[in-house]
C-alpha cells in the first residue's frame, strides 16, 4: 500500500474545523458555541457538498449577525433533505416558497424587517438580517429574474448559491452552470460532441458584479475558513451581496463520497473555478493557486467526464477545458506569486 504524500496546500484547509487547535484558531464548526443552524439528522447524501457548504455558511452568518438571521430557501436538494415534514434541521427561522423566487422572498423579508425596525419592533439583539439560498438551477436558471431584480434594487440580502453544476434533486439534468463536456441526464456522452456543449452557460458571479452590488465572492467547500471569512465579510455590507460556493455532488459528478473536498480543491487548484472577491463590481482579491495542476487531474476522477478518458482520450476537448482554466487564471490573477 503506497502512502499518500501530504501536500503542502492541504495544511490550513480546516476541513474538520481545526478542532485540534487552540480555541481562538478554530473555525465556527469546532467552536463549542456553534449554532448548528443546519442541524445533524438531515437526509443529505453521504459526502454532500451542499450540506457542508450550507452548514458553514449559515453558522458563519449566524455568528456575524449575533444570531439575528432569517433564511429563505429555494426548492432543491437543500430544501428537500433539510425539511421532510414534520422534521426540520433548521435551527433558524426559515422559509421555503418556490423554486424560482427565493431572492424575491428574501427581499420581502428584508422589507418587512425594515418596517418593523422603523416601528421599534426589530430584533432583540441587534438588526435582523436575511440570507437567501438556492442551488445553481434555482439561482442561475429559474430564479435568475428574481435574483437580478434583487441585485438591481440593492436589497439588503445575502444570496448564497450552492453550485453543484446541475439539477441534482431531479436526477442530474443540465443547468446553465453545468460545465462543457460534462455528462448529465440531458447532455449524454453520445454523438459527435459528447456531454454538455461548449460555448454555453453563464458564470453568475460575473453577472452579479455587473450589477455593481457591494459584495460578490466565490468560495469552495475545500477552504471552509475562506468560506466563513467571506460570509462574515458579506454581512459587514448593507445591500445586495452574492456568494457563489462550489459544492461537489458525489451523485451527480460520479465521485466518491470521501472525495467531495478533494474535488472542490482540484476545481480551484486547476483554475477551473476561480475563487475571488469583488466589491462594487471590481475584483479586490483572489485566492492564488498554490500548486497548479492540469485540468485532467480534476476531470479524470469524475464519472461525468469519463467519456473524455476512453480508449481514445479526447485530447482536443481536454485542451479546450485547459484553455478555459488558463483564461480564468489570467482573468482573475490566480497565479501564485509568493508571499503570505
Amino acid at each position: 500500500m503506497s502512502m499518500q504524500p501530504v501536500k503542502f496546500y492541504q495544511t490550513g484547509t480546516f476541513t474538520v474545523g481545526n478542532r485540534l487547535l487552540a480555541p481562538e484558531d478554530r473555525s465556527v464548526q469546532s467552536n463549542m458555541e456553534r449554532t448548528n443552524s443546519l442541524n445533524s439528522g438531515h437526509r443529505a447524501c453521504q459526502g454532500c457538498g451542499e450540506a457542508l457548504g450550507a452548514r458553514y455558511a449559515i453558522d458563519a452568518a449566524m455568528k456575524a449577525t449575533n444570531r439575528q438571521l432569517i433564511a429563505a430557501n429555494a426548492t432543491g436538494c437543500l430544501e428537500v433533505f433539510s425539511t421532510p415534514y414534520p422534521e426540520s434541521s433548521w435551527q433558524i427561522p426559515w422559509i421555503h416558497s418556490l423554486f424560482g423566487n427565493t431572492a424575491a422572498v428574501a427581499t420581502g423579508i428584508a422589507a418587512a424587517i425594515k418596517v418593523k425596525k422603523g416601528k421599534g419592533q426589530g430584533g432583540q439583539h441587534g438588526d435582523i438580517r436575511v440570507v437567501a439560498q438556492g442551488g445553481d438551477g434555482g439561482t442561475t436558471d429559474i430564479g435568475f429574474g428574481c435574483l437580478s431584480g434583487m441585485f438591481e434594487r440593492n436589497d439588503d440580502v445575502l444570496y448564497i448559491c450552492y453550485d453543484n453544476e446541475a439539477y441534482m434533486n431531479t436526477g442530474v439534468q443540465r443547468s446553465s452552470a453545468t460545465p462543457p463536456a460534462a455528462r448529465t441526464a440531458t447532455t449524454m456522452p453520445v454523438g459527435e460532441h459528447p456531454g454538455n456543449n461548449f460555448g454555453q452557460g453563464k458564470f453568475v458571479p460575473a453577472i452579479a458584479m455587473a450589477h455593481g452590488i457591494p459584495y460578490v465572492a466565490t468560495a469552495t467547500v475545500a477552504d471552509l475558513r475562506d468560506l466563513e471569512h467571506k460570509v462574515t465579510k458579506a454581512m459587514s455590507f448593507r445591500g445586495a451581496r452574492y456568494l457563489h460556493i462550489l459544492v461537489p455532488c458525489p451523485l451527480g459528478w460520479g465521485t466518491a463520497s470521501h472525495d467531495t473536498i478533494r474535488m472542490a480543491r482540484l476545481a480551484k487548484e486547476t483554475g477551473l473555478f476561480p475563487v475571488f472577491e469583488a466589491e462594487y463590481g471590481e475584483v479586490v482579491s483572489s485566492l492564488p493557486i498554490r500548486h497548479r495542476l492540469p485540468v485532467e487531474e480534476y476531470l479524470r476522477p469524475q464519472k461525468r467526464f469519463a467519456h473524455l478518458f476512453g480508449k481514445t482520450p479526447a485530447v482536443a476537448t481536454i485542451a479546450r477545458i485547459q484553455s478555459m482554466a488558463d483564461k480564468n487564471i489570467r482573468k482573475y490573477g490566480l497565479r501564485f506569486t509568493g508571499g503570505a
Partner: protein
Amino acid sequence: MAMFEVRIHGRGGQGVVTAAEMLSIAAFEEGRHAQAFPSFGSERTGAPVVAFCRIADAEIRLREPVMQPDALIIQDPTLLHQVDVFAGLKPGGYILINTNKSFTELGLGELIKDWPAERLCTVSATELGQKHVGRPMPNVPLLGGFAAVSGSFSWPRWSKRSTQNSPARSPAATSPARPRPSILSVPKWPQPNRRPPMLKQTEGSHAVAEAVALCRPEVICAYPISPQTHIVEGIGEMVKSGELKDCEFINVESEFAAMSVAIGSSATGARTYTATASQGLLFMAEAVFNASGLGLPIVMTVANRAIGSPINIWNDHSDSLSQRDCGWMQLFAETNQEALDLHIQAFKLAEELSLPVMVCMDGFILTHAYERVDMPTQAQVDAFLPPYVPRQVLDPSDPVSIGAMVGPEAFMEVRYLAHAKQMQALERIPELAAEFKAVFGRETGGLTHTYRSDDAETMIVAMGSVLGTIKDTVDEMRDAGVKIGVLGITSYRPFPLQNVREALKNAKRVVVLEKSLAVGKGGILSSDVRMALSGIQLHGYTVIAGLGGRAITKKSLHALFAKAGRDELEPLTFLDLDWTAVNKQLERERSKRRSGPIAENMLRDLGTVASRIA
C-alpha cells in the same frame, strides 16, 4: 331619472379624458352625481380618443358607453371625417367644436339645418390655449364654452382642478356664449362648497389607493400592468411623500416577484398588499397558489382584464376566474365605493383567517371611472381593522420552518384545512359586512345581494360592475310589469352555494350573465350556480357577455332578458356576437389550409376599429 350625457371626442394628448373628469368634478362640486370614464384604450398621442361623462341627480349605475349623448364636445375637427362623432346624438343636442370655422365651413350645414342655434357652438379652443398657457390644449377652453352654452356650471368649479392637471387657467374661455338656464335641477348641497367632507369625486384606482393606505399597509409590491397601474402609483406617491408612513414600496421586476416579495414580507409579519391584472396574474400564478398554501393574509387588487392571446387590455373576468381554485378568496366589487370598502374588509378577513384575498374590480370600467366615493376617516378604519397579529412569523427569537415538504401522509389534511378556512369565511363575510356597517354606516360586501327579487320569475345572476347596467334594465322591465330580479355575487370564493340556492330556488328561470368563458364547455360562474341549484327544476341559461371589453348595453340586455322571459334563449348564448364575422372566418378555414392568423383576419373583416364609439 334625469340624466345628462356628454361625449367628448379628441386625440391622444389633447386632454380628452381629463376634460371628462373635470366635467364630472364640476358636476360633483355642484352636488350632483357624475361619472366620467374614457373609451378605454391603448391610444397613443394623436390617435382618436373618446371620453364620456354622465351627470344625474341620483346615483349612476349605468356602465355602458354613452350611446346617445345629450352633448358632444369635439376637440379636434379633423375627426369629423374620420370618426362617426355624431353617432346617436340626440336631436337638438349640444354640439361644441374646437374650430375657428363655422359649421357650414366645416361641411356640417346639412346636419345643423334644423338644429336650435343656441345648441351649437364653436370655440377657437386651441388658439385660446396657445394664447393663455402657451400650449395648444383645447380641453379647458371647450369646457368653458360648454359651461356657457349649457348654463349648467359656474366656471370657477374648474379653475382649481385645471391648474393642477392642465396648464390652462384662463377665464377667456367663458367668452363664447351667454350663460343659459341650467339643464339640470338645482344643486343638492345645501350651500355651495359645503358638501360632506369625506365625499369626493375621484378615480376608482385612486379611491382604492387611499383606502389601502388607510389600512396601514407595511409592504407594497408594485409591477405595472394595465389597468391596475394607477392604484400602486397612487400608493407609491403617498409613501414617497411621507403621507403613508412605516411602509416599504418596492418596484419589482415581474408579477412573479411581486407576489414572492409579498410572501416574504407577509411571512415576516408585515401587512402586505399588491395589485395585478390579466397576464400579470397568470405570470404570478405559481406564487399565488403558494401564498394561499402557506396561509399568508396578503390582499391583492385584481383589476379584471381579459387574457390573451389575442392580447387585449380591456375588461372581463377571465383572469381571476382562471385562478378560482388557487385558494384565495375572491370578492367582486360592483362600484368604486364597494371596491374601496371591500379592501378594508379584505384585510380583516384575510388576517383573521390567515388566508389571502383578491378584491376584484372591473378594469377601466371601475378603475378608470371618476365617480363619487365616501372616503372613510383613519379613525374609522382603525376602529374596524386591528393591527395584524400573524399566526406564523419568521422571528429569530422563536425560529420556525415555514414551507416544509409535505408527503401523502398529510397533504390531504393540509388541503382540507384550506377548504375549511374558506367555509369559515362563508360565516365571517356577512358578519364583517355587519361590523363594517356599524362603523362606516354603509351596506357593503356580504356574500350576495338581491335586487327586486321578490316574486321574480326571471333571475339574472352576475358579478361586478355590469350589475349596475343590469339593475337599470331590470327597473325598466319592472316598470313594464315584467317579474324580473337580480342576484349579485360578491363572494365568488368562497362560493355561497346556500345563499345562491335560496335566492334562486323560487324563480322559473335563471340567466347567468358572465364575463368569462370556459372554452369547450360554456360558463364558469354558471357551473357554480348550477351546482347551487342541484335538484331544482328550472330553466337555466348561460350568457357569455362583455369579453375583452365588449360593451354590455342596456339595449342588448333588454332584448336578451325578453327572449329569456319567453324561454327562447339558447342554453349558451354569446351576447352581441358578430355571427357574420365568425361565419366568414369559419368559411375561410374550410376553404383554405393556410387561412392565416385568426385575430388579424377578424380585424381585417371588421375594418377600422377606431371609428367605432362602442
